[in-house]
């Protein structure tokens, strides 16, 4: 048998205050970055406006592109040249400048840069202001709905304290992922919201596996203290936690490396989420459930006695 992490016996719960400090630092760092950036950096999906992507060959300078776009009447456009593919330019227009259909005017202006330059439209995303607001509220609702469903399911299958621990841990995962994206100055698009929901799904999966083992141990080892039972549950599922999150991280990493520009933010969010989720499965969810348990069962180790 080829194996790692067998017979691990870590006193996770005994050191749970360390986890609170680590999580505290991560959450505060995320919060500081989010406040410094004035909230998450929303993409066109949520703010409204236009994102246009063109491939220009031979490649002009960014300034040529900017002045061409400005000459078409779009002042203050944000222009980015792709680092990995310098022929591709991303032009972002705010909701006021974009109007309903800016692509033809921008394309015509770009053609004016040089007569022999090939202009190819790769992508247009135009979102009206009202649709942007609607998408934002739909995204928030979807995240809350997902967390609510999880809360109810885990509470029904396990215990409300576990459910509360799990949902707080999920909030923790999603919030820190948002924070990391904010620190890296990445945009929050609909696709990123999809990544946040997915990582919440993968993360709760982990927590349920740990909870399940804790519940099993609770039945077989009735006399043990809750701390010890939780430690056992975490330690016994540790190799599985590491392996599964490892394979998910490898898939996500390959998406990040090879999946192309369109999926880059998605896979980045998933990757950050996989790491934070693993940590919170080991520590945050169970530790919070334990705190709640200790507080609600002061009289004895189990309610039944």
């Amino acid at each position: 048998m080829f194996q790692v992490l067998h017979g691990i016996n870590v006193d996770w719960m005994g050191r749970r205050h360390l986890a609170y400090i680590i999580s505290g630092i991560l959450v505060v760092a995320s919060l500081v970055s989010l406040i410094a950036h004035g909230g998450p950096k929303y993409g066109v999906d949520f703010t409204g406006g236009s994102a246009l992507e063109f491939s220009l060959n031979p490649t002009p300078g960014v300034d040529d592109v900017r002045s061409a776009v400005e000459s078409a009447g779009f002042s203050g456009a944000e222009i980015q040249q792709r680092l990995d593919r310098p022929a591709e330019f991303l032009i972002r227009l705010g909701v006021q400048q974009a109007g309903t259909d800016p692509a033809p005017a921008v394309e015509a202006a770009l053609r004016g840069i040089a007569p022999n330059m090939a202009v190819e439209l790769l992508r247009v995303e135009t979102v009206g202001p009202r649709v942007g607001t609607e998408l934002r509220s739909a995204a928030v609702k979807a995240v809350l709905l997902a967390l609510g469903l999880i809360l109810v399911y885990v509470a029904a299958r396990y215990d409300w304290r576990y459910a509360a621990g799990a949902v707080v841990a999920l909030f923790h995962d999603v919030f820190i992922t948002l924070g990391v994206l904010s620190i890296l100055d990445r945009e929050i698009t609909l696709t990123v919201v999809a990544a946040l929901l997915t990582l919440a799904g993968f993360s709760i999966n982990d927590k349920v596996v740990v909870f399940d083992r804790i519940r099993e141990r609770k039945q077989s080892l009735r006399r043990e203290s809750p701390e010890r039972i939780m430690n056992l549950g975490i330690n016994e599922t540790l190799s599985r936690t590491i392996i599964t999150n490892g394979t998910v991280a490898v898939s996500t990493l390959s998406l990040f490396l090879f999946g192309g520009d369109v999926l880059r933010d998605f896979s980045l969010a998933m990757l950050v989420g996989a790491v934070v989720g693993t940590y919170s499965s080991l520590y945050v969810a169970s530790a919070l459930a334990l705190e709640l348990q200790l507080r609600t069962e002061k009289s004895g180790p189990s309610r039944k006695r």
Partner: protein
Amino acid sequence: MTQSDRNKLFLTLIGVALALYTLWPTFQFYSMPPEQRQEVLQARPAAATNEVERERLTKLTKLREKAIKLGLDLQGGMYLLLEVDRSKLGPAEARNAVDQAMRIIENRIDQFGVAEPSIQKQGDNRILVQLPGLLDQERAKELIGQTALLEFKIVKTDEETRATFDRIDQYFARRASGGAGTDTTARPWTSRFLSVAQGGESFALVENVAGIDSMRAQILADSSFVLDASLNWESHESEREGRTGRAFHVLSREPLMQGKDVASAQMRLDLDQDRPGAPGVSFTLTTRGGGLFADITGANVGRRLAIVLDNRVQSAPNISERIPRGQGSITGSFTEEEAQDLAIVLRSGALPAPLSIVEERTVGPSLGQDSIRSGLKAAAFAAVAVIVFMVIYYQLSGVVAVIALALNILGLLACMAAFKATLTLPGMAGIVLTIGMAVDANVLIFERIREELRNKKTVLSAIETGYARAYRTIIDANVTTLLPALALMWLGSGPLRGFAVTLSIGLIINVITAVGVSKMIFDAWSLRRKVNTISI
């Protein structure tokens, strides 16, 4: 092998065969050379000219319908969310406006020749239009968004036209002098034209068009100045004495007939005897329209009838005789494409209310190709990495898990084909994530079996206990993972819904393959020989 094992194996084989059968058209379609695939995408049996051709096209259409469809983000195309502006409609009209607009858009797009367009109502005043494949963006948008007010009006006689021009001149002269005394010789309006009232039309050079437009706007804005006429440009520029400009018509104020009176219209190349091969449009009127048309033409023989689309004169043919049977034609300096579009507009009528584009997502075909390539690369890399790891770490049992993984992906794709789901780029990401996540159930089981083995259980009982104990965990874990995916399905439209669907199907099939199929392989293997070792 026991009877029940044999049954399970039989079921599995049937499942695999069914999956392969479902995926066969997809395989056929995507292994075609690009030109042939394009032909399949464009195939429209209705366009066939003979029976053999129709049969062939029907077959291609079926192939297209059975293959897994690629989302707009992968094959390129347009996604347009349109909003119907109902602010100017009465309550009864407003109720029907969206459905009516949908029918008209459907009709227009259908004739535009896009394969597999999708037009859906969203909410109560929005229409989602998805146009896959390569196409002329601007033309499509124009065709969809055009309000297209079509009217038929009589062209005023030359005397009437001159009288109208005089009145306009006087109006501007009076305004210039501040109302004190009128200079009857000043011609601020007429002087902008190269020729006035010659055979029912006037002509202005290109450089004067904008000036005339602004004067016309002033007249229309001034409610104290009532003109019993409508002032209209011709839709296309033309030449007089070798100089480019635009013809201008003074028309009757009220339309005699409208677009709704037209029953059908076709682009034809044989309408203009003077210019054979010049594109034009022939049309047939409804019964009511035919009656009106007979009256109009009868009462106005020798005059010109203007066909006005969105306030521009498309054509103003002479009425040579009374036309009783409701047949007519429009000729002019059209390109073939313009004539085609005009015919479409005539056929499908005018939109009841203005539409605006509130969301657009267009992906060019080259970016789509790129995305497919990167998606496949990411999937291949993830699969290789996961397979190598599983086989090294769990050895023969790892091979079992890999078989389960392969069946999982096969089942996922087959379900997508069967449910006519669309594969989007986020959907591809969903498959890649499924590759990473699908082994989880087997990891849970194998870790459990290892634990049982460490507790000195026999191999057989370790397998039994391992599966039994892990099973419950797997169900709970997969249900909780499914919940956010369901929330996402509710949130998302287009690509994101594709992602949520892929992920959800993957999770459900995962439980079947990772638990059922892998257990079956273990049972078959361990019961045949009285094993006491296991490769795990």
